[in-house]
């Protein structure tokens, strides 16, 4: 078997690097959980592919684009890493995407939302797998607007991520004939949201769109509950993680609408994975961690299918093979690197509805892949437009 790999697997080993936030604000969303998910995939795949061992290494990008890019380049140049997974933090993901394009190596983005991955810095080697900003905006935005929520107020983190998200949802709202009554920008890691809540309240908007994530979203939602906003207005969280719901607690979070690609309790298969994951990590996986597993599997299968780990051959294989596992049903990777799969709108359960720890969400609707992600004809990716790179 080992001879099989000769010449077909570079360096006789398939090395997967998980480049993630191990110590910063995203370390609970990705971090060790992401690494563990990729490891599980490697093990479940059997530990070898085409006879070559699969090795998983990881590093901390410290949420710095330059650190991430340098690490990626070093991994590609001297460590012989074949694929980099996770890439939470958009700045880091974009920078690594550029490096990967140069180096002709694969990256799979699960942690970041920036749609530049499949547009400006797209390449045959970059796949955006779990979710992106467009899907968040259109998932929650459209569903809420359809439900009649036509006047909005935004609470936005004063970062490119937040402002971009706000712009997209604004578009959705205005397209549907709705109106944005105002917005307030808060700094990253703000400690107090009460002032913004009062502004939101004063705006009289039906919907308060929270265009921030993590600790900030948690704080904002808590403040909303404290000031009784939820009695007359509805909160729509544009990127809320399962971990965030866990933090907020169902008391304050109940009734919230949010879009996620996956939820551990959505079906039997998902539960099976989640329980194995829980054993190892001690918390339930979120959509990005599940996608870490699923995408790694897909990458390994593609190597097997291509019979080599040559990046171009693998790229082709990954784009030609459908994805059917606990994460996605009939998923596929588009030309521009977007992995197409359904997204889901969820509502946070009330404490009474919850059947136990980590049982937080109930499905509201399914957003078909074609609606969830930006149509290919709007893509600025050179692979799609045919423009010279």
């Amino acid at each position, binding site marked *: 078997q080992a001879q099989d790999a000769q010449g077909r697997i570079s360096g006789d080993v398939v090395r997967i690097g998980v480049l993630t936030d191990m*110590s*910063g*604000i*995203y*370390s*609970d*969303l990705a971090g060790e959980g992401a690494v563990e998910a990729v490891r599980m995939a490697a093990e479940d795949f059997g530990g070898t592919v085409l006879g070559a061992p699969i090795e998983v290494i990881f590093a901390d990008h410290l949420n710095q684009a330059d650190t991430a890019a340098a690490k990626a380049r070093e991994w590609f140049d001297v460590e012989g890493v074949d694929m980099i997974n996770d890439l939470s933090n958009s700045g880091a993901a974009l920078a690594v995407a550029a490096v990967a394009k140069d180096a002709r190596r694969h990256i799979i983005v699960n942690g970041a939302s920036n749609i530049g991955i499949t547009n400006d810095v797209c390449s045959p080697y970059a796949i955006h797998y779990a979710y992106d900003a467009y899907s968040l905006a259109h998932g929650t935005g459209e569903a809420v607007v359809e439900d009649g929520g036509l006047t909005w107020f935004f609470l936005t983190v*004063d970062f490119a991520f937040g402002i971009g998200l706000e712009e997209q949802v604004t578009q959705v709202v205005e397209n549907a004939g709705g109106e944005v009554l105002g917005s*307030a*920008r*808060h*700094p990253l*890691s703000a*400690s*107090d949201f*009460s*002032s*913004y809540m*009062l*502004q939101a309240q*004063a705006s009289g908007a039906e919907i308060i769109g929270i265009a921030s994530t*993590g*600790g900030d979203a*948690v*704080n904002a939602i*808590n*403040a909303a509950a*404290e*000031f*009784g906003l939820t009695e007359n207005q509805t909160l729509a969280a544009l990127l809320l993680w399962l*971990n*965030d719901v866990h*933090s*907020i*607690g169902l*008391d*304050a979070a109940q009734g919230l609408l949010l879009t996620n690609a996956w939820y551990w309790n959505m079906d039997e298969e998902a539960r099976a994975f989640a329980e194995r994951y829980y054993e190892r990590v001690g918390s339930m996986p979120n959509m990005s961690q599940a996608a870490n597993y699923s995408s790694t599997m897909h990458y390994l299968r593609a190597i097997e299918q291509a019979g080599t780990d040559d990046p171009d051959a693998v790229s082709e294989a990954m784009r030609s093979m459908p994805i059917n596992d606990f994460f996605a049903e009939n998923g596929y990777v588009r030309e521009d690197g977007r992995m197409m799969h359904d997204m889901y709108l969820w509502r946070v359960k009330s404490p009474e509805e919850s059947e136990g720890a980590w049982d937080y969400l109930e499905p509201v609707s399914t957003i078909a892949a074609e609606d969830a992600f930006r149509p290919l004809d709007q893509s600025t990716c050179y692979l799609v437009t045919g423009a010279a790179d």
Partner: protein
Amino acid sequence: MIEIFGVPLVALTGQIMLGIVNGAFYAVLSLGLAIIFGIVKVVNFAHGAFFMMGAFIAFLLLENLGIGYWGAIFLAPLIVGAFGIVIERLFLRRIYGLDPIYGLLLTFGMVLVIEGGFRVAYGSSGQIYTTPGALRGAADLGFMFMPIYRLFVIAAAVAICVLVWFAIERTSMGAKLRAATERPQLTQAFGIDVPLLMTLTYGGGVALAALAGVLAAPIQSVSPSMGSELVIIVFAIVVIGGLGSVSGAAITGLLLGVVEGLTKVFYSEASTIIVFLIMALVLLVRPAGLFGREEG
């Protein structure tokens, strides 16, 4: 309806109330910082970390021992204050008499260790601490519904500031503390137990930070980094008030809470820098700070 720059007066009044709540935290924190700087001559960069510890310990007391808010509000400052005393005995003591910059650097290192430690142990995402039952709900102030807990914070902060100010400025304790700061050797040679004084002062200042942390726990999510940005704002506040001026620090804290709150209404993007802007201006116009004594 009366409007100011397009914002109704009623809404503005509400925002000012919220500013006062924030100012209350600033006041208690800057009070502790000013005391520590004024007396121990240490620029306590770890103040934010102790604030966080206060909140975290309240949370852990509830999680692990079932000790609720009213227990925590006494216990957590005690525990953190004791921790501060240990730090003072082990570390700070060795840098007295050196340039105050070393104190800044030492405590900067402590921040990394303390926050890093909590992050490793409890992760980086926030924990929720529920508001104590007696203080839940909101009060109708006419112009707004104000959560009762926030009103409690204002009252508690004002009480704390007045008590501390009294202890330091109106008792002979204050003179002793200042003397010990200025000429520790001589003061000790007069028969005052300076080392003990320093230890207790640092412990007290740290306990104040922790107390602010407990007050904050129900309205902020409790996370290892909750104090890290806060500390430099509180620093700026103390500098604006005049380093070493205890009452100045508290008053400035309240004031800037309000200013910051109003900034959030008119130009929310600038709310993070308004304090620094004011600080730069104040220092250039009134170098010793608003309440500081001109030195030299």
